[in-house]
């Protein structure tokens, strides 16, 4: 179980992302209010186009809201400049993508070392940290392998190592098991659970896989751009008991 405390690390109030094209207005997210606390493992679920990835991208400051408030780790993300956001993201956020998004020409060790290039650590310290992160995800023997030489499951584990190497406060995962077979997905979910339970990391995971959502301590549903009230599920969806 997650060791959540009462301090919210993510607070959104009436958070909205609207796209305007000439006379058309499309709401990717509308009036979403949520609080996620330190040490929680929250799964965001919903059908395609429900706004779950949009919410995750806004939390990671990969996109700017068009309305509402968003405070993450004490920072009002709307007030940060682009370069401040980049530094903030590097220091506090670990992001895991559905398609792993490793740099194909770099080895596993170099991929994991990459975010540390923006820190003041020496090369030796960077490589030590990267090596330890890869050992943590069980890839201590694949340091010099390039993404092409690894399976999808191994690639996603490298991506997890890259996400945690900076010791971020918040781990955000966008469909982390979406491109994996059942066994690899299980390994990845196990790793995320460990990061949450053993290392106390706050994890927010977007998924539409009920099995993946069950590993989270808490599940929130979205539908048609709206965050449903706590405990409510979309029509035709069976609730998941985490």
């Amino acid at each position: 179980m997650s060791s959540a405390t009462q301090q919210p690390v993510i607070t959104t109030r009436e958070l909205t992302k609207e796209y305007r094209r000439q006379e058309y207005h499309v709401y990717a997210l509308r009036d979403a209010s949520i609080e996620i606390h330190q040490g929680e493992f929250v799964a965001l679920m919903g059908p395609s186009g429900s706004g779950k990835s949009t919410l995750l991208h806004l939390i990671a400051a990969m996109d700017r809201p068009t309305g509402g408030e968003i405070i993450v780790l004490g920072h009002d993300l709307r007030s940060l400049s682009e370069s401040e956001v980049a530094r903030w993201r590097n220091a506090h956020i670990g992001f895991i993508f559905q398609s792993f998004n490793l740099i194909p020409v770099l080895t596993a060790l170099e991929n994991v070392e990459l975010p540390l290039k923006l820190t003041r650590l020496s090369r030796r310290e960077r490589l030590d940290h990267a090596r330890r992160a890869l050992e943590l995800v069980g890839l201590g023997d694949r340091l010099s392998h390039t993404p092409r030489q690894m399976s999808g499951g191994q690639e996603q584990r490298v991506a997890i190592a890259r996400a945690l190497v900076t010791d971020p406060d918040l781990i955000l995962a966008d469909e982390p098991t979406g491109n994996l077979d059942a066994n690899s997905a299980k390994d990845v979910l196990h790793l995320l659970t460990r990061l949450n339970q053993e290392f106390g990391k706050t994890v927010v995971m977007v998924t539409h896989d009920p099995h993946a959502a069950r590993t989270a301590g808490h599940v929130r549903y979205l539908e048609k751009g709206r965050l449903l009230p706590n405990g409510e599920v979309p029509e035709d969806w069976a609730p998941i008991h985490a």
Partner: protein
Amino acid sequence: MLAIPLSYNLRNLTARKTTTAMTALGIALTVAVLLSVSALVQGLRTSLAASGNPLQVLVLRKGGTAELNSVITRTAFQDILARPRIAHDEEGQPMASLEVVTVIVLESKENPSGININLRGLTPMGFRLRDEVKLTAGRMFRPGHREIVAGRSLVNRYGVYLGQKLRFGRGEWEITGIMDGGRTSANSEVFADLNQLAADQNRSTALSSVLLRATSLAEVQPLINDLETDRRLNVDAMTEAAYYAQQTSSAMPIQALGTFVALIMSIGSSFAAMNTMYAAVARRSSEIGTLRVLGFSRRSILLAFLLESALLSLIGGVLGCLLVLPLNGLETGVGSFVTFSELTFSFHITPQVMITGVVFALIMGVLGGILPAASAARKQILPALKSV
């Protein structure tokens, strides 16, 4: 400090070998054209600069632009000899050489109609004033005989040989020696005895020029002033170095044409680099998005792609230098508009010429890379991540 590691750029270049090789080759060919022209001009400059001793002064008729159209009488020469500031040798002889310069036509396989070659009549003092000139084969011409000594380049380019008889003037002249002029223009000249040649050319009293050595560098300009202000002499005087420097203008049309061609090619090469880099940016859009998510700034992305373009052009630049390296030392010649004769010299690929080529390539790479790099840096994170 560069945040994105250099290995990222290098490996991306090696990952797409064919594209990298083709673009680099295009840049290399452009650099090769520019370097060939630069090496040619450098070779000519080296030859002409070496021909001019800064201690020496060349005296021509007033208004005479070259030795060929200058006339100096023996009387004027005697007047000049009496001037102070002229160095004397150990035997007390003034270091001054009266010379007659004319042109002969030398035929070759490449130029069956013949090429103008400078024929210089001088005394042993004329040889002494040319420190770099050494006899390498045969013997010196004898005074009063129709004998000549040919420059090394004439052997290489026109196949003249010891014992060969050349017909010009009033008879046949035998090549009795071959001289090595070092890096000077003497390599492309023929030397003969002053009096014999002057008589043969009906110029016993009206010769061409006087070469003088000043006692010191400080006395060179006063000596020139002294000669030029003497109205009886009616001469122009200049340092030997200045005289040869003005002949560099002979290479100007080639330099201008070569530079023009290289510039046109460089525009093409810059577009090739731009095209390659635009393709790289499009293909690696998702990587750019990922780097931004990891915290790399737009500036880091811009620098990374600019650096990659510069590295690509650097490969082209180095390749271009290697392509022209075999030209180094190759002898060629240009017709001089000053002397109306051919001046032979070697392509001279100096480190400076090669640096010029590499810098030129880098400029092409940076110019070609700046727009694609800017487009990479401008990408928004989410659209970049979504592009395949």
